[in-house]
């Protein structure tokens, strides 16, 4: 049976099971009129039966599709003549591929001989056998589950609790997928970074002042021993981030104050969505805006007053990045200001404070933790931002604090290290993972601190 047919028949079985379970529960107490004698609503008995009918075969189906290919391949190799079985792993792999291709009628890279033909017909046989077995097992399990569930239905049976704990299990499963994925990503970054640190010392990496990640591919290549000092990248990141925050924090905070305290409903209703649109612009759009509009403008403006400005400058990237995170700062600050209880504001006004005195003297100090938290979140966003800096900041790892020069950031270097064809065991490629680890640690720390601030501050008024 095809997978879809199997699934369909299982669904039909489960549906039938639902009505059977419901009917049985009602029959046990003597009809719908006396349904109140049941522990749970009749539908729960139906769902209980349907669950038993559906979940075991589905689990089996999942496991089967995970392991089927591997088991069949093993059995295939078992059955090959000794000459083939003693081949190297790579050759064997190729042979198995050819057998499989022949079985489904694809192109085969070698001449078709008797061994191959025999093996491919055996492969087809194994597959058909596996399908048949799966169908029988699934339908059998479904029937078995349905029958055993059917027998357990009694008026006092707590079907509702069973159904709910099953639902709870699936909720847990869904949430653990997110958690496990996070752990998986962290682990993979961590282990690849450890491989990198076997080739490059961690001290050189963290404290080296020179970043030039070109390693020799051939022994006789010259001048590309590679040096992996992360300091120029960190200072570049820091420089751009500082410029971005200098733009975003004052503008964002002031717009938040205006929106929360001074604007009329109408202005607010129009301005809030506009700010959110700003947050919705893809960063790549900001990127070419930075590279094609702001960077030349910064250069021209610099030249006009006699400054030597690079075409790709930290200033241009920082300015645009600042604009990008204005909505973040603004909306988080707005939330923080709005969350200050209104009676605090009224208390200040009732004492004869003007609106701005109430704002600066009472509301902002009360909202400060939330604002700081929001700013930290924006900061980690700025540090992790990639597209704008790739396009506008340049690739030169200059160790400089001059905003008119080109600098590069951690994220930009990760991109350049992994763009194009790479060998995945060279120090150059692995360096990306080490950079990723550094970035991850920094932004995670900022996020944790920022979220803590926000949370502590929320508790204060609840």
């Amino acid at each position, binding site marked *: 049976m095809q997978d879809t047919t199997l699934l369909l028949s299982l669904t039909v079985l489960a549906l039938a099971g639902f009505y059977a379970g419901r009917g049985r529960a009602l029959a046990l107490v003597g009809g719908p009129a006396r349904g109140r004698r049941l522990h749970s609503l009749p539908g729960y008995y139906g769902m209980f039966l349907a669950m038993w009918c559906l979940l075991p075969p589905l689990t089996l189906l999942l496991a089967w599709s995970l392991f089927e290919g591997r088991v069949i391949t093993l059995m295939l190799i078992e059955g090959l003549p000794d000459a083939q079985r003693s081949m190297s792993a790579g050759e064997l792999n190729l042979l198995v591929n050819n057998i499989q291709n022949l079985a489904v009628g694809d192109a085969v890279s070698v001449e078709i001989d008797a061994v191959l033909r025999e093996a491919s017909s055996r492969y087809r046989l194994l597959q058909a056998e596996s399908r048949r077995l799966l169908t029988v097992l699934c339908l059998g399990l479904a029937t078995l589950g349905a029958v055993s569930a059917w027998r357990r239905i009694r008026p006092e049976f707590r079907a509702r609790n069973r159904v709910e704990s099953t639902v709870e299990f699936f909720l847990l499963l869904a949430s653990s997928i997110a958690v496990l994925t996070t752990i998986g990503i962290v682990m993979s970054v961590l282990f690849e970074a450890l491989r990198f640190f076997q080739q490059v010392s961690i001290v050189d990496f963290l404290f080296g002042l020179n970043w030039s990640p070109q390693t020799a591919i051939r022994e006789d290549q010259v001048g590309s021993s590679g040096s992996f000092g992360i300091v120029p990248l960190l200072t570049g990141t820091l420089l751009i981030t500082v410029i971005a925050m200098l733009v975003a924090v004052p503008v964002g905070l002031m717009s938040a104050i205006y929106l929360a305290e001074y604007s009329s409903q109408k202005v607010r209703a129009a301005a809030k969505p506009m700010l959110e649109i700003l947050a919705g612009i893809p960063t790549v759009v900001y990127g070419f805006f930075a590279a094609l509009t702001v960077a030349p403008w910064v250069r021209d403006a610099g030249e006009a007053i006699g400054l030597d400005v690079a075409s790709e400058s930290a200033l241009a990237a920082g300015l645009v990045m600042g604009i990008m995170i204005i909505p973040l700062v603004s909306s988080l600050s707005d939330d923080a200001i709005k969350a200050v209880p209104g*009676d605090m504001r009224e208390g200040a006004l*009732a*004492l004869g404070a003007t609106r701005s005195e109430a704002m600066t003297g*009472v509301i902002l100090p009360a909202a400060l933790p939330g604002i700081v938290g929001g700013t930290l979140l924006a900061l980690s966003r700025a540090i992790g931002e990639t597209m704008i800096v790739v396009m506008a900041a340049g690739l030169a790892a200059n160790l400089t604090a001059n905003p008119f020069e080109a600098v590069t950031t951690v994220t930009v270097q990760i991109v350049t290290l992994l763009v194009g064809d790479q060998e995945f065991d060279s120090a150059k490629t692995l360096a990306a993972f080490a950079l990723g680890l550094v970035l991850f640690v920094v932004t995670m720390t900022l996020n944790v601190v920022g979220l803590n601030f926000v949370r502590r501050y929320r508790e204060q008024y609840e």
Partner: protein
Amino acid sequence: MNDPNVIEPGGVEASADGPGDPGRRSDTVSPRSAVAEQITEFGRIPVGNVRCEDPFIIAENVNAYYGDIHAIRNVTLEIAKSEVIALIGPSGCGKTTFIRCLNRMNDSVEHARVTGRITLDGQDIYERGLDPVVLRARIGMVFQKPNPFPKSVYDNVAYGPRIHGLAADRAELDDIVHGSLERAGLLKEVKDRLDEPGTELSGGQQQRLCIARTIAVNPEVILMDEPCSALDPIATARIEDLIDELAEDYAIVIVTHSMQQAARVSRRVAYFHLGMLVEVDETDRIFTNPQHKLTEDYITGRIG
């Protein structure tokens, strides 16, 4: 002189179905004229005596609207210097709205509108050009829920004097803060905790801190919006004692849901119903011999 029985029924101008022209400023009504009695669905109101000796605040035909909601309907009431007047009535009857008209707190509510005339010591507080900020320094307000600022006890009390520049130097500010805390009966308890956050005091202490904060700017009137509704009986008793003491120097308008509290602290009581002022009289008379059926129903527990 303002016995309600003497008022000419012919003086009735406002009709039962509203305030007439809401934009009209009732300049034609001189502050001490006869009360514009209205005939409403509840009969002729207000009964009792809305006038008083030596009035300090005079509200004449005040109407307040929140958007389309007519929250205060044609209220006329005088409040004397150094008296405690309690506003009672079922929830939503406009007591709080009325006191928020007195210090123009409704200004900051969008769609709120106030018509009529309110004078403080002879000055129209809704006059164009009058700064509500200055007005609010003269009319302090204590809120239902204690709302100390998230600052130290000291800074809470010093906030008002600071923004109004009442103290020339630190020593003077210290005097004001200590004096206000003393008057609010809180100094003994917080003398050693002036640097701690005001939000960490107990509920009753917080409310007295708010009172101290209010009197620190030296107001002439204190409005209290159910100041004890969030407090336990002991803290309530302390606040009530405090109100008694403060009554010597300030006009106090207190909104309360507790009839016992009104009886204990006030000299006069005003009963509001559905935005209308139904009856005003000496506290004793209201509680022993209410003139209006609605008042009687409320104080005997049949409404509310």
